[in-house]
């Protein structure tokens, strides 16, 4: 025999046994990480959820593996009796034990590497303080401690399930030693910093790993050694045990009981070790939670973890005890009703869980019964019952699906976390109602009942998996239903308009440079300097002028120009040029009319260029700003002396700009199309803004994705309306359309039409239009589109 080949083949076999675990854990982990780090959950309030989920997942993956590897490689083989065959091979027991441990350790290293890679990716992308929140190294060390401990327990226990249960108290041992050390130190007047806890824990874990390794090898060698009847049956040599055993034997000869009683007896006896262990875990969890307010602080999360694991394993045991060795076929062969079998499997675990919930609630709330009302208690009871039912139901579903009790016991808690994560995700992202999500917990229960006949008959064919897949789809897709209903109920942008806008958006913009925001020039003290500064900015930056320039630059400039025009009519002799500050610091009141005229021309030329540059913008807000600038220019042109003051050339330029309705309409259409395109690509700062405006119909608080969909649809409809409106020709629009647009874009209805009382009325008649002052100025979407001022402007030509 070639020993090396034998060991290699043995290692291959062990690896094959571990592969389901090595695949299942990272896949489920990846799903949980994907859910936990998705948009919006990773920010704000979601931070705590994310950190908690990831702490569990990233550290739990190697930990779960380490706890289960021994049960899978040793316990499962013991139950299948393949270890008996293995030890009949010409290899030493030390080789069998060593190969199992080495392969399991290699698997742990792989999962460590994956956990670190996941952790790095998450820390870099979503949760930067991940490593501050999670004692990562300590948790990885925990896995190193659990691995040999799991092996030792698996060699020691007859049942793999019991060895898995025992790993829980063994896992807590280092924490207990650490706490005792801390308490001892504190009693002697020495206090440790909280950071020192981990410095204390890590050596403890490494020491425990060495002890575990020794125990695993020693117990393994003992198990694989030739059997000694004395060793196997030591309990029977104990007289008391013999008496007890004799008493038990008589149990089988009592009167025949009804089928349900017999089935309950069978379930309880078959799983008594697991049921007792789980009950102890639940009791320990209640104790930990009840004393959680006291030191040490780790008791509360520890209590929750214990309660979670115990609930999950109670779910697993519902079907796993009967699945082992296909025992359930015994009942199937005798035609026992699947319904009876199903509910007799549920009764005892449900009773244990119900009793635990009641005890926990009484324990927590009894000191506060005087202060707390029934209305406050009911939600607590309901949410506890839901959480417990969900974990229990998902776990029993996993227990029915998996043939291996080890995989079921390890997979069920992870799948439960995944299911819980999906529920949280659905609530946060789709805005699904909590009641609906909670009601989905019943699906695994219904499913296990529906499948109980096939499970009993061991008929795991295509239809079995088809139903499972359908149920899984139901669980996955039902939370999306409210979102989908909203999406499909919401009217969509007409296809024709979408295509027109798509074509328009593909057209090249006249000005593709970035938007510029004009400033008044901090160092400019005189009007000339200010005008020069603005001109320089316009020459140096070729981009469209942003609407944000209106308030602090364009409107003051318009005011200055108006004053310049007015000053041309005023006598200037009385003005003392030596006043301090000099009067032309505003540049308005100067003795020389020629200078004033020149400055007026310059100001109007700048305003004209600003309007032209605003028209080149791909956002609709600049089109509205340009409208306001052009309305002001139109009003300026209506004054008698302006044409002379501007001179023929500049006057003609202004008139050409104002009279070109077609170019204005085209610019608006371009802006709508590009704003829509940019909105869809989220280039303008997310879903809340469109074309530079905050969209008032933005939906929030109904789930991140639902908000996005609804907002998208609403904006799409409003944009389609704008497109139709702008393409409507020169005739005045009807009031219904104006009101609709106003309501879609959040414009006060009174602002439309030509009512002078409106806050920002439509400029149907420029001569009576009250151009807003700087304080009252506010742009409103499409407010001046197709208003009367455009026809007046066209008439200028």
């Amino acid at each position, binding site marked *: 025999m070639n020993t090396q080949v034998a060991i290699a083949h043995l290692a291959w076999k062990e690896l094959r046994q571990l592969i389901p675990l090595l695949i299942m854990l990272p896949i489920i982990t990846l799903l949980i990480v994907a859910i936990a780090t998705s948009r919006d959950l990773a920010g704000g309030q979601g931070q705590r959820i994310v950190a908690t989920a990831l702490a569990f997942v990233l550290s739990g993956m190697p930990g779960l593996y380490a706890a289960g590897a021994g049960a899978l490689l040793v316990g499962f083989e013991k139950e299948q009796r393949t270890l008996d065959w293995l030890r009949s091979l010409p290899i030493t027991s030390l080789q069998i034990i060593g190969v199992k441990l080495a392969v399991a350790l290699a698997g742990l290293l792989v999962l460590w590497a994956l956990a670190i890679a996941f952790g790095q990716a998450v820390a870099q992308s979503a949760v930067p303080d991940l490593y501050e929140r999670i004692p990562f190294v300590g948790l990885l060390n925990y896995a190193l401690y659990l691995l040999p401990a799991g092996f030792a327990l698996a060699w020691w226990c007859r049942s793999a399930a019991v060895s898995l249960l025992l790993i829980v108290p063994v896992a807590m041992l280092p924490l207990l030693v650490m706490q005792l050390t801390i308490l001892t130190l504190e009693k002697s007047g020495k206090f440790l910093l909280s950071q020192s806890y981990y410095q204390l824990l890590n050596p403890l874990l490494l020491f425990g790993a060495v002890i575990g390794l020794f125990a695993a090898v020693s117990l393994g060698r003992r198990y694989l050694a030739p059997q000694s009847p004395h060793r196997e049956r030591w309990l029977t040599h104990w007289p008391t045990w013999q008496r007890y055993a004799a008493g038990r*034997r008589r*149990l*089988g*000869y*009592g009167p*025949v*009981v*009804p*089928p349900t*009683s*017999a*089935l309950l*007896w*069978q379930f309880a*006896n*078959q799983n008594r070790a697991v049921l007792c262990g789980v009950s102890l875990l639940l009791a320990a969890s209640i104790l930990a939670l009840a004393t959680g307010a006291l030191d040490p602080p780790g008791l509360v999360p520890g209590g929750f973890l214990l309660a979670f694991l115990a609930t999950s394993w109670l779910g697993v045991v519902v079907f796993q005890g009967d699945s082992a*060795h*296909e*025992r*359930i*076929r*015994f009942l*199937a*062969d*005798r*035609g*026992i*009703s699947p319904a009876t079998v199903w509910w007799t499997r549920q009764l005892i675990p449900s009773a244990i869980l119900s009793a635990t919930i009641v005890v926990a609630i009484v324990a927590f709330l009894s000191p506060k019964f005087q202060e707390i009302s029934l209305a406050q208690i009911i939600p607590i009871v309901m949410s506890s019952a839901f959480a417990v039912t969900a974990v229990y139901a998902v776990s029993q579903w996993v227990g029915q699906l998996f043939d291996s009790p080890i995989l079921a016991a390890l997979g069920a808690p992870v799948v439960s976390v995944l299911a819980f994560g999906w529920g949280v995700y659905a609530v946060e992202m789709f805005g699904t109602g909590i009641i609906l999500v909670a009601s989905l917990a019943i699906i695994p229960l219904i499913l296990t009942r529906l499948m109980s006949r096939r499970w009993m*008959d*061991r*008929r795991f064919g295509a239809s079995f998996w088809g139903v499972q897949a359908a149920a899984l789809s139901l669980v996955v897709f039902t939370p999306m239903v409210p979102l989908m209903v909203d999406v499909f109920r919401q009217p969509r942008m007409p296809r024709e308009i979408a295509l027109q806008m798509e074509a328009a958006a593909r057209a090249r913009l006249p000005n593709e440079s970035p938007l510029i925001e004009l400033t008044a020039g901090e160092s400019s003290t005189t009007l000339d300097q200010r005008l020069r500064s603005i001109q320089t900015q316009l020459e140096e930056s070729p981009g469209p002028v942003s609407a944000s320039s209106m308030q602090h630059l364009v409107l003051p400039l318009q005011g200055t120009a108006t004053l310049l025009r007015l000053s041309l009519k005023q006598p200037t002799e009385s003005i003392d040029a030596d006043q301090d500050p000099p009067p032309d610091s505003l540049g308005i009141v100067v003795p020389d009319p020629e200078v004033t005229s020149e400055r007026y021309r310059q100001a109007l030329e700048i305003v004209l260029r600003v309007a032209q540059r605003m028209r080149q913008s791909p956002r609709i807000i600049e089109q509205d700003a340009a409208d306001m600038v052009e309305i002001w220019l139109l009003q300026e042109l209506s004054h008698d002396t302006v044409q002379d003051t501007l001179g023929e050339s500049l006057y003609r330029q202004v008139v050409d700009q104002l009279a070109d309705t077609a170019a204005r309409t085209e610019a608006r259409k371009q802006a709508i199309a590009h704003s829509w395109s940019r909105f869809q690509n989220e280039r303008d700062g997310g879903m809340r803004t469109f074309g530079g405006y905050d969209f008032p119909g933005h939906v929030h608080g109904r789930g991140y994705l639902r908000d996005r969909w609804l907002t998208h649809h609403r904006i799409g409809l409003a944009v389609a309306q704008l497109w139709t409106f702008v393409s409507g020709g020169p005739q005045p629009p009807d009031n219904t359309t104006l009101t609709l647009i106003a309501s879609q874009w959040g414009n006060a209805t009174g602002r439309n039409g030509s009512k002078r009382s409106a806050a920002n009325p439509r400029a149907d008649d420029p001569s009576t239009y009250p151009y807003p002052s700087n304080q009252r100025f506010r742009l409103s979407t499409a407010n001046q589109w197709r208003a009367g001022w455009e026809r007046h402007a066209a008439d200028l030509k």
Partner: protein
Amino acid sequence: MAEPMSPKPESVIAIDRLSVSFPGCDALREVDLQVPRGTVFALLGENGAGKTTLIRALTGFLRPSSGTCRVLGLDPDVDALRIRQRIGYVADAPALYDWMRVGEIGWFTAAFYKDDFLDRYREMIAHYEVPEDRKIRNLSKGQRAKVALALALAHDPDLLILDEPTSGLDPLVRREFLESMLDRVATGRTVLLSSHQIAEVERVADTVAILHQGRFRVVDSLANLRETVSEVTVSLDDPLVQLPLLPPPVEVMSDQLEGRQRRLIVRGASEEHLQLWRARPGVIGVRTRSATLDELFAACIRGRGANKTTASEGEVAEVA
């Protein structure tokens, strides 16, 4: 191929054109069968012939791809649970709660049957000499088989379906058990026995069905088979001598050439038919005797092409 039996009103099992297909494999191909009440019906076939598939279809553990079957007048597709309650079934690898003691499993199972179940069970366990206080997991293979048999028989079912029941039993218990089957049949019960132990089947079976590659090659009463199936040894002066074709319903089930002798298993051949062979030039002599069930079974499984080197020469017979 065997002719389907004519339907009888008292049939406990009635199968009509039953097919069961798995991906890449047709386990049963349009099988017809009638099992009369009060008989021991033996189901024979090599490994993978479809015996267990047929039993699983009859007990509702498997849904047929096509065709119908009825057990005790019930459709297994609809009334599987009622069928299972009324029959006794011992699977090839019986599932038992191995953590229970022998006595406990009887007490537990008694909850699902009539009142006298436990007494009968205890009688049988005592008869089989299985210790009642021993856990099932600590029993030998044979003892487990005895427990499984006792559990299947204790409610005195109308139909007993046994899939390799005697595997692991010692010869004495096996003999006793098989003889007890005859007692059951005498009281109007029916036994469907699937087995490889042909010699034992031959001792107790009333009717025999041989399943080969998903089809029944033979379904007939044992007495009839003994009368009609014979082994014919033809001595030839030259192995290349061709034998004349025998007219229907004579069926040559197997044909082997051993030197200058051809050994054929023939069904339905009379002395007149054999005379045709005797009269053939080159035939030195023809001897005949009744075939054993073992020989018939082998003939069904091997067919005419079993001995390839001689089969091509045997093709000259072109019988059946």
